[in-house]
């Protein structure tokens, strides 16, 4: 969503070099200005694109061609949203906040554990061809199994409490992080590794001063993907069996043909995932800013 500043081509002719050296101070400022314009445009664009969807939705829902239990009007959804936010009576004795925070309480540990495992395992695999041959078939086999298919087994193993939901979240989150870590660490140029060796860098310095910064853009991309998927992971767990959480809310709403509430639940999940994504994107901008 936010473009990172890409490395630019260093090979320039001599005339180009001179003009560039002269206009150096300007060019830095120009680039910052350009970046700010891009951010501004994105900030502007979001409300516009959301408004367009809303208008289209409003128009279709009010056209009378679609039954309201199939597609509720935006007003009905908003009204439901407003009601469940404060009043739990119609939402199985609990407010939307309650369900959202229950889900969040599984997403956050799930994300933290998943990212930790993904990064550590990815680092080890990136460093060791032997471990890669040993581990990658298992990881790939596991990953190609649809999680909804074996999630019930996890519930049998780990109980109906939060544990099994955190676990589904971990399982969904860790794979993109793993892959991005492997790619990121492998992408560190051999020349720079040699350079670090010339200065007799320790293992820790190699990691801290070279591998982390060099792989950071790719690691952050992995984190963004994982953050987006984390909510899905927890909700899949909640689908199987749970007492609270957005996954429960949407299941119950669907069961009682309360379409506006289905919409409210779905939108809440999306908002939760977007927020997590935005947090990572914010961190990314902080790190990548010059």
């Amino acid at each position, binding site marked *: 969503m936010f473009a990172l*500043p890409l*490395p*630019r081509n*260093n*090979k*320039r*002719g*001599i005339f*180009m*070099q001179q003009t*560039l*050296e002269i206009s*150096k101070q300007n*060019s*830095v400022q120009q680039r910052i200005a350009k970046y700010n314009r891009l951010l501004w445009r994105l900030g502007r664009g979001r409300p516009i694109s959301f408004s367009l969807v809303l208008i289209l939705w409003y128009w279709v829902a009010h056209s009378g061609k679609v039954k309201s239990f199939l597609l509720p009007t935006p007003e009905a959804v908003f009204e439901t949203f407003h009601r469940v936010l404060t009043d739990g009576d119609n939402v199985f004795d609990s407010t939307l906040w309650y369900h959202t925070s229950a889900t969040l309480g599984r997403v956050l540990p799930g994300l933290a554990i998943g990212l930790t495992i993904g990064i550590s395992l990815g680092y080890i695999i990136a460093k060791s061809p032997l471990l890669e041959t040993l581990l990658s078939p298992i990881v790939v086999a596991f990953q190609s199994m649809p999680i909804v298919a074996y999630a019930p087994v996890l519930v049998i193993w780990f109980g109906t409490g939060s544990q099994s939901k955190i676990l589904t979240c971990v399982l969904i989150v860790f794979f993109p992080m793993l892959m991005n870590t492997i790619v990121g660490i492998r992408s560190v*140029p051999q*020349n*720079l590794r*040699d*350079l*670090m*060796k*010339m*200065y*007799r*860098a320790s293992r820790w*310095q190699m990691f801290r*001063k*070279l591998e982390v*910064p*060099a792989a*950071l853009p790719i690691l952050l991309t992995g984190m963004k993907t994982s953050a987006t998927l984390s909510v899905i992971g927890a909700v899949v767990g909640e689908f199987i069996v749970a007492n609270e959480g957005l996954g429960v809310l949407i299941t119950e709403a669907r069961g009682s043909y309360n379409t506006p509430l289905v919409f409210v639940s779905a939108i809440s999940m999306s908002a939760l995932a977007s927020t997590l994504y935005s947090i990572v994107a914010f961190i990314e901008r902080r790190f990548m800013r*010059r």
Partner: protein
Amino acid sequence: MSINLTTHNLVVEFGALRALGPVSIQIQAGQFVAIVGPSGCGKSTLIRVLAGLQAASFGEARLGEQIIRQPSMRVGMMFQSANLMPWRTVMDNIALPLELAGISSIERQAAVYDLLPLLNLEDFAKAYPDELSGGMAQRVALGRVLIQKPDVLLLDEPFGALDAMTREQISLDLLAMWARDRQTAVMVTHDIHEAVLLSDRVLVMSPRPGQIVEDIAVDLPRPRHIEQTYDTEFAYLAQTIRKAIRL
């Protein structure tokens, strides 16, 4: 203190492929030696052994009396690309060796600011590598080597990617800095002209597996300058080297 650099029957093999050798050379402390030879003959491999980045398959390389088994802080190396870290400023790139050696940031800054004028980079301490021209980037790389105050300079086609004019200028800059400290210097180059202009001695290598086929002394007076390239003696040396490469 510069130091002798020697190899004795040095051979490097990658699996079944012999990439280099056997090579036996003696480089006296403070000597500037250029190495020329056809592409793929093992010049980079030789430099990497001297740097301690590549193990010898047979024979040995010594820094002074010590057999080279790993990189040493006494040895500075310049690669064909500037090899800068794009996330670090010019300042932090140059200071990298000191930072890794655990020297405080104040001392690092002082050392970098001493060096920047020599490198013609005063105004770019805070710039990032992608804001630099190719020549400036190589000057940063040169600064990064000089800041560690090495006794040995290993230069693997450091200016190969630059255009002719920038290249001539920066190699003369390098020569001026070398003249102050007189490190033992080994430079790989494809450019015969550059080899003669800079060095005390040119080693010519055969095609792979590279061996030294010619050892040509360059007795031109120092300090060197561009005008010398028009001398007959210069032309004669260049001609001798060119013939030796064709051998």
